[in-house]
């Protein structure tokens, strides 16, 4: 039977749309309900899909032995356990990394302090050498004399090779 309206069978797309419940024109649905050829084509489509599903299923599983999945589950779990221990190892490595980083910081700090101290000591020594070489300015001898000078009564106490004994002690 054909569609009385347009005298045409449903196209493959219309059939597929009906099969998947895609809202198509009401005419298409009505035609499918009334046309034996289109109903056969629709059944063919459904049959093909079921055949494909069965064929794929057979293909995927027929070559497997009955213990395949049990064996595979064990293999997967051993890999899962290994990955877990490797994850913990990774964390442990991170801990080691953190410890190493802290140690490095301390080491670099100590080295810096040590180097700066050495540098300071070298500068200090250099300063001493300079001081020793050029020395501080020696005091003025007059300043030394003035220590014994009481100002008024004592006119001074001249010391020197040019001072005569008579000057010192007077004459008899």
């Amino acid at each position, binding site marked *: 039977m054909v569609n009385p309206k347009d005298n045409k069978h449903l196209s493959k797309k219309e059939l597929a749309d009906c099969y998947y419940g*895609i809202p198509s024109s009401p005419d298409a649905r009505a035609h499918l309900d009334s046309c034996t050829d289109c109903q056969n084509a629709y059944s063919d489509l459904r049959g093909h899909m079921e055949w494909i599903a069965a064929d794929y299923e057979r293909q995927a599983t027929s070559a497997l032995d009955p213990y395949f*999945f049990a064996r595979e589950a064990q293999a997967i*779990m051993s890999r899962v356990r290994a990955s877990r221990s490797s994850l913990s190892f990774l964390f442990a490595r991170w801990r080691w990394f953190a410890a190493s980083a802290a140690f490095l910081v301390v080491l670099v700090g100590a080295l810096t302090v040590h180097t700066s101290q050495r540098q300071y000591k070298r500068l200090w020594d250099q300063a001493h050498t300079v001081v020793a070489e050029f020395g501080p300015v020696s005091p003025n001898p007059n300043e030394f004399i003035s220590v014994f000078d009481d100002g008024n009564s004592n006119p001074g106490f001249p010391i020197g090779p040019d001072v005569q004994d008579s000057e010192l002690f007077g004459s008899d």
Partner: protein
Amino acid sequence: MDTEHFDLDDREIVRAVQQGDTERFEGLVRKYQPRAYRIAHYYLHDQEEARDVVQESFLLAFKHIQRFRGDAKFSTWFVRIVINLSLNRLRKRRTPLFWKRWHYPRKESGSSVGETDQVVQRVADPLPNPEQQTLNRELGLRIRKAIDALPEKQKTVFILRHLDGLSIKDICQVTGMAEGTVKSYLSRSAVRIQEMVKRYYGEPEG
């Protein structure tokens, strides 16, 4: 599919694994492994590769299980991983094809039988008539080639609907597509397969 662990609550298992009970993960492995294997095989048509993909998928799921917050079903999340890894394999396989052909020439040169045919030939066909078996194998091969040639999204939708048996709603959750898009992809792939079948039987395409 293995029904032994169907009664287990996925969320409960996931929570236990998240809290450090690794051994509970085996419940998920046993429950979803056959399905994952089938899906991977539907894409790859190779037992070893499907096996690898399933193992990688479970490892990946375990590694990132802390990220699973239970908003979606575990199966949805996991199937998405399997699909992505299978598609990655297919993409990798596609790229160096010329290289493979050059370095590993087909053993059965002179015949049109390829890798996929060998898989088909391993299949024990239950049909009694040898001629019918041959026809079915050839048709199966052509259909597989037609499905393999579908664009990735169409193929995924087709596999999930017809081979994995998911509902349209579940396909939307796995793929993140809108319902209309899923249906449209399904319709297009069905048309393409129908055309191929008609061509195979020499019927005029309508």
